[in-house]
């Protein structure tokens, strides 16, 4: 099955069981499948039908959805109508959150991850960055005759964070405190970890809310921006500054799916094989959707073993080749797949040095691998190129000591065990200008300080965040599936469904705080969804900050000119 999916092993299991084929006879191959964002992690009727027809006809069948078909059947997301309340003391300490979420999921729950997860995340994560003692959340799920909804990048986070940050801003305004100051007062302190005091049961290993807040305020020059905002207001220019702190679920344990009975692997594995030529082949269960997983696996493997990057080849997305694994979702690729690669790399390095010690009749502890060569650990003097080591190990093992067996393929697996989720944190800010005559919102600048633990590849991490922020801005200002009263999708094309484009995007400044997770040697947390999680809240808060002196407030996303004008009472 050549399949555009994020979860090849899950699909192998699904195809095998539903079509009555032994699992070993089903091979799912997914190459570089391109942007997926959660859309390709579900089971779709078209794909099952294609596979079934192929089985019935005993011949290859190909199905490609066109744009309209994709719009009509790929999962939609984020249909929620939520009421949120916050209690705080007059001094400005948050006491509790109260939440009532009505969410529509379409005509049925999508298999096998279920459509309830998004609402579940909303009720779990709202209030997450802030200390509080009391928490009540209700969720009502209703069926509709629209398309199905399910997990889409940052599942539930954009809603939970936008709700939290909107009500936090309101609380700050009610008691007359600056919104940054209110956050400083209420964000979980950086020395309170491990933090398990939440009434909702969330557990945090170690977060860095205050470091991130300080860094953000310095980066954006918050005081100067506030002064400029006040000066411009006098000239009739309505700028708004919005802040949004966030937490993000990454590196999930079986708590997500396995414990609920879904046959979706929480573990991932990596196999590393030193080839006779001294090249390294890396095979991993995590897949590549363009987010750069293959690139960081190559980096991790190269540095773990002691090779240069050009000697590493990565293979992902093939159930016939890679270790069993979950694939790509919930920001798990680097943190889980990467740790498996690291552990396999360390083991392989040790095995290579065993072979080197045997060939060189040297003490293993005196050897190391640097730049594709076995070297003296002390002097870095070259002892044996890996290509020569490979040649001897595979083709002339007769020259090695009797009974010596070389082991140049290593597999390691990893699944997080200590915490159900490895939370990350961060904070974003948005600067906008609202034209009160037209209801148009102009994005002037966006900032994000994020803590994803160990940053393996700074460029990939920064662009994951930027791309995520753009996707979040899409939700805040542009994207919406419009339906007629008869349940027909009205804007199933890229002219009428407005995705954010470069013409409207502001400069996005990204910075980091690094708090590695202690659960793994790599220390990497996820980063793929952070931008999307925080951006809508920051933009909505900025819009409402701009509208505040005009006595207006928008609460629906996207904040279209039409909605802003209605809020202003102009139409």
């Amino acid at each position: 099955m050549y399949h555009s999916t994020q979860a090849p092993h899950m699909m192998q299991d699904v195809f095998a069981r539903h079509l009555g084929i032994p699992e070993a006879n089903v091979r799912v191959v997914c190459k570089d499948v391109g942007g997926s964002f959660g859309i390709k992690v579900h089971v779709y009727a078209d794909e099952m039908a294609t596979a079934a027809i192929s089985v019935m006809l005993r011949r290859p069948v190909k199905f490609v959805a066109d744009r309209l078909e994709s719009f009509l059947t790929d999962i939609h997301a984020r249909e929620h109508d939520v009421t949120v309340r916050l209690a705080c003391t007059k001094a400005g300490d948050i006491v509790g959150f109260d939440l009532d979420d009505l969410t529509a999921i379409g005509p049925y729950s999508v298999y096998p991850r279920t459509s309830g997860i998004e609402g579940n995340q909303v009720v779990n994560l709202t209030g997450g960055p802030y200390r509080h003692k009391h928490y009540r959340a209700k969720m009502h799920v209703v069926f509709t005759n629209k398309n199905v909804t399910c997990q889409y990048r940052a599942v539930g986070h954009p809603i939970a964070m936008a709700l939290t940050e909107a009500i936090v801003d309101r609380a700050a305004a009610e008691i007359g405190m600056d919104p940054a100051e209110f956050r400083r007062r209420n964000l979980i302190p950086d020395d309170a970890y491990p933090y398990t005091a939440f009434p909702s049961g969330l557990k945090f290993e170690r977060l860095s809310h205050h470091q991130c807040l300080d860094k953000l305020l310095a980066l954006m020059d918050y005081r100067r921006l506030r002064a400029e905002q006040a000066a411009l207001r006098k000239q009739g220019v309505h700028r708004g500054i919005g802040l949004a702190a966030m937490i993000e679920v990454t590196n999930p344990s079986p708590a997500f799916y396995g414990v609920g009975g879904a046959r979706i692997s929480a573990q991932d594995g990596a196999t590393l094989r030193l080839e006779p030529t001294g090249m390294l082949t890396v095979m991993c269960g995590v897949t590549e959707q363009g987010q750069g997983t293959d690139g960081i696996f190559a980096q991790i493997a190269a540095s773990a073993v002691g090779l240069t990057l050009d000697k590493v080849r990565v293979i992902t997305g093939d159930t016939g080749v890679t270790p069993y694994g979950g694939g790509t979702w919930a920001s798990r690729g680097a943190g889980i797949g990467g740790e498996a690669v690291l552990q396999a790399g360390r083991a392989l390095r040790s095995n290579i040095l065993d072979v080197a010690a045997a060939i060189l009749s040297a003490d293993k502890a005196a050897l190391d691998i640097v730049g594709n060569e076995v070297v003296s650990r002390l002097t870095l003097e070259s002892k044996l190129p890996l290509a020569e080591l490979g040649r001897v190990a595979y083709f002339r093992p007769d020259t090695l000591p009797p009974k010596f067996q070389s082991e140049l393929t290593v597999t390691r697996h990893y699944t997080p065990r200590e915490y159900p989720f490895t939370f990350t944190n961060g904070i974003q800010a948005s600067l906008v200008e609202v034209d009160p005559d037209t209801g148009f919102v102009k994005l002037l600048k966006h900032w994000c300080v994020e803590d994803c633990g160990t940053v393996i590849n700074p460029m990939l991490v920064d662009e994951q965040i930027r791309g995520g922020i753009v996707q979040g801005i899409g939700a805040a200002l542009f994207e919406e599936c419009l339906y007629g009263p008869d349940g027909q999708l009205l804007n199933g094309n890229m002219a009428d469904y407005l995705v954010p484009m470069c013409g409207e995007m502001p400069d996005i400044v990204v910075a980091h705080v690094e708090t590695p997770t202690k659960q793994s040697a790599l220390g990497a947390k996820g980063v793929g969804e952070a931008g999307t999680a925080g951006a809508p809240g920051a933009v909505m808060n900025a819009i409402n900050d701009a509208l505040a002196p005009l006595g207006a407030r928008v609460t629906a996303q996207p904040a279209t000119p039409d909605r802003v004008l209605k809020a202003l009472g102009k139409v």
Partner: protein
Amino acid sequence: MKPPSFAYARPGSLAEAFDLLERHGEDAKVLAGGQSLIATLNMRLSSPALLVDITAVPGLAGIAVAKDKARIGALTTHRAIERSAELGAALPLLAQAARHIGHVAIRNLGTFGGSLAMADPAAEWPACCVALDAELVVARRAGERRVRAREFFKGLYETDLAPGELVTAVEIPLPGRGHRASFIELARRVGDYAIVGVAALARPKGETLEDVRLAYLGVGPTPALAPHAMAAAEGKPAAGAAAAAQAALDRDLKPAADLHTSAAAKMHLARVLTGRALRALAP
């Protein structure tokens, strides 16, 4: 999406083009820049058996500015108009409007005549031609006829063109020295069709505006001239003209909602743009 299959012809003269159009009747469609037609084919909204590509017909592209009028060939691209220094001086409205048409790649291919023949009510050129009181040169086998832009647009994507007819050029009377132009539109994203737009012209005389012209896009099935608003603004200083035109605009425009914007918001935005455009015309 992919278009249904079609045949393709590229005539080298107008006579050949007329032959093909006559022979194939309703089954044939004229292809110019393809920036609207190919999209409609890909969306399967249209399935002509034959595309008659007129881009090899000589003499249909080019800009000529004379003393009292400008002539723009039907195959002149949006981009060529945007970058023409001659037009920029004689008819600044056009360069102001061109920037809003799609993206550069689209403007490099899309044509003036194609946009007018397409008659999208949210397009820039039809409203500009209505404001400028341009005249379309329409050719058919039997010869040429001329039709005023103000009479050319009949309904949603409907024009005065009869089967077998081609737009070959547009002639625009120059509004004269000292006139000023303002084209403003609101679109959600750079390059999108406008929610609402206005093409405005006037000749300032002292403090007041004369020969005021206002034409709107995105407010109904065709580009809309606003005679009441124009009359209300005539002879007034810019600020007064703006208020008067805004007050009169209800009598000229009855916009319908689009997917994203309610009718009331469109009307409100048309009033806002009217004010901004007239104030921009002040000397």
